[in-house]
């Protein structure tokens, strides 16, 4: 069975988003017949994470600083992606409709993604199972290298 299932946290290895973490939305094995004749996957990741918060900050400030995430959506070659053992249970397939990934519509998709990521980031305690909680916390931590 393939490793890259939807919901898996992956690390982008190449390109502009190298070193960023993403979640696999859809895995397209064997490519599509027109331009991408290689196995690739659709991922949604965090281009820029939320700003750091400290203990002394007010609740309003914390929330404002937590809502500064910048997401990205990308079709990426499977070779440029490194899977991790973490999984995240955000319902991204509903948010990202395949047809909406061109031009202006892409901006809308990113806006919905931003909202989903932010809500999950602020409500990490609400995630029930331990495995999913570990996945979420790993996803939002910046990979240090």
């Amino acid at each position, binding site marked *: *069975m*393939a*490793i*890259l299932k939807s919901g898996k946290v992956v690390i982008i290895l190449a390109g502009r988003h190298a070193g960023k973490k993403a979640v696999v939305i859809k895995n397209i*094995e064997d490519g599509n017949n027109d331009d991408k004749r290689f*196995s690739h996957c659709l991922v949604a990741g965090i281009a820029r994470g939320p700003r750091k918060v400290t203990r002394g900050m007010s609740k309003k400030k914390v929330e404002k600083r937590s809502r500064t995430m910048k997401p990205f959506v990308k079709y990426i070659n*499977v*070779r440029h992606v490194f*899977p991790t*053992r973490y999984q995240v249970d955000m319902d991204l397939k509903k948010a990202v409709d395949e047809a909406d990934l061109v031009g202006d519509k892409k901006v809308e998709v990113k806006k919905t993604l931003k909202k989903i990521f932010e809500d999950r980031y602020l409500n990490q305690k609400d995630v029930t199972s331990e495995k999913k909680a570990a996945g979420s916390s790993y996803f939002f931590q910046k990979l240090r290298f």
Partner: protein
Amino acid sequence: MNSRIKLVMKSGKASLGYKSALKSLRTGRAKMVLIASNCPPLRKSEVEYLAMLAKTTVHHYSGDNTELGTACGKLFNCSVMSITDAGDSDILSSKE
């Protein structure tokens, strides 16, 4: 172990080399992965991690890449090889 590898090369399917091993691991086709002893440690950990994700057995071959290449009957060295189809060999069942 060498005789099992020989039988796999004859009757089954194996892919030699790091890139093809990763490819077979990613698609889930690899049944077993063999890593030579002098494989660079970063590459070794990477293959082990992916094999863990794919639930594929990893066997650390006792011998370096030249010996693993020879065991496969090839004239080149091979640091990582993956077995996609064991054929008549019992390599998969005996190493569990």
